[in-house]
């Protein structure tokens, strides 16, 4: 299904990512904090200290209505953490696989080979996607298992969180294509990442607060995929070897 040259280049990308200690440490550390280290004490605290959110005039936003105790964690805080992590890991990996290749002019080595830019970029985006899933899903599984064991949420409820997680990883991977167009060095890449992700995270927070019930996670997932799709359309429209080589 995947083009042969993409498979070959994907192998190269994954090998290089696996050897990049900086990429692996930075892509794992923050998700470890946000998906495991910080949420577990919160979960235990909220579970033992029932928290009633004060009634807001008019009932407040739908996403904040009827949230009690550990619901705040499962319905509000953890989905936000999951979304942030799903966005962060691919963006960090993209800085290493896409921007560093450009900054260090190693792209010239690939340009000399019989391969099209589209194949190079697809391989890079796939490697970013694979890393994103490989890092976030196991960390998510740790906390999710604890939530189920503690009886804070059902397996179905917690499994639904995989929707925003997967969508965030896909969205961030797609946004990496814009990063390819906009950032020529590592520092610019970090700044561009911030500019690209802040609005997305605001949208995510808005959906979590503004949409009630279990639909909120599906809406969030759909919104993230829409943003990612738009990024791919814009990126594919503008990206050329000439722009990437500049």
């Amino acid at each position: 299904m995947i083009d042969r040259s993409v498979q070959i280049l994907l192998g190269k990308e994954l090998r290089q990512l696996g050897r990049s200690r900086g990429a692996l440490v930075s892509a794992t550390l923050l998700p470890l904090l946000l998906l495991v280290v910080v949420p577990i004490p919160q979960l235990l605290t909220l579970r033992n200290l029932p928290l009633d959110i004060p009634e807001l005039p008019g009932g407040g936003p739908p996403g904040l209505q009827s949230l009690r105790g550990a619901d705040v964690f499962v319905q509000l805080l953890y989905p936000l953490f999951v979304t942030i992590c799903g966005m962060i890991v691919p963006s960090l990996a993209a800085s290493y696989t896409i921007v560093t290749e450009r900054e260090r002019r190693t792209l010239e080595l690939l340009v000399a080979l019989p391969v099209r830019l589209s194949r190079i970029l697809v391989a890079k985006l796939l490697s970013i996607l694979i890393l994103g899933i490989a890092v976030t899903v196991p960390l998510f599984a740790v906390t999710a298992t604890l939530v189920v064991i503690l009886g804070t949420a059902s397996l179905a409820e917690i499994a639904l969180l995989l929707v925003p997680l997967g969508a965030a990883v896909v969205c961030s991977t797609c946004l990496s294509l814009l990063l390819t167009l906009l950032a020529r060095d590592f520092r610019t890449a970090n700044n561009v990442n911030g500019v690209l992700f802040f609005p997305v995270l605001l949208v995510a927070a808005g959906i979590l607060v503004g949409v009630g019930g279990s639909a909120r996670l599906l809406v969030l997932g759909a919104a993230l995929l829409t943003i990612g799709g738009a990024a791919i359309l814009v990126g594919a429209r503008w990206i050329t070897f000439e722009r990437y080589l500049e």
Partner: protein
Amino acid sequence: MPSALAFERVTKRYRNGVVALDDASWSIPIGARTCLLGPNGAGKSTAIRLLEGALRASRGNVTLLGAGPDTPAYADARRRTGVVPQNPGMYADLSAIEYLELVRQLYGRGDVGRVIEAFGLGPHRRTMLAALSGGFRRRLLLAAALLSEPEILLLDEPTVGLDPVAAHEVHELLSAAMKGRTTLLCTHNLAEAEALCDDVVILRGGTVLLHESLVALRGRVAPRLRLRARQGVEPLIAALRRRGLAVEVEADAAIVNVDGLRAGPELLRDLLGQGLDVYESVPLEPSLEQLFLDVVQA
């Protein structure tokens, strides 16, 4: 003879407005070894980039083995072409053998062991590319370009930045690699071009100033003679100037342009008749540097 590569009224304007190639037309027949010369900014590297498919022409057609970059046949033409890029960055996390294996897979053929042996890369097969010395980096790039036994070789400044010893080693490897292969050598090094190529394309400001064989190019320049006389250089210069000839002095020798080599014996008879004991008269081949300067400055 069919063209191995061709530029047909090609213009390349970059996004910043710089015109690298301006309505340039030239082609190289199969089997030719051609050097692409020109001052900085002449459009040499742009030409290579257009051929390797990294850039698209703003106007006109570029073809490689008869295939344009947007045609289905181009992928095959590209797999029959080896490219040595100009001083690329080197991966710090990919070893020489891993890179060559990647190249072999993308070309779909080649014997990695053979090129490692042929280019003396054996001791460095596990070395990361960024850790290789300048000379071994060029060997690796050349090995990668030749791994699939390509029909066409595109060389973009293959010895730039190398010390003389490493450059000499790469020249020897290039000389062997270019035998029987269509080659386009883009270089600033005129001695390199002269040693390795038969034809020359000279670009300036994105246009083709000249495309000729080196033999024909030499024929354009007036032949020169280096003369030495037992009486010394001063009487020789005086005698030559009396004949209205422009004279250059090189140590104890006088160098003059003559109107065709057949004019040499007549000149010699005249000098001997004037009592000058001319004991040396050597025709000088114009260097490519001289030819290049003549063409570019004209």
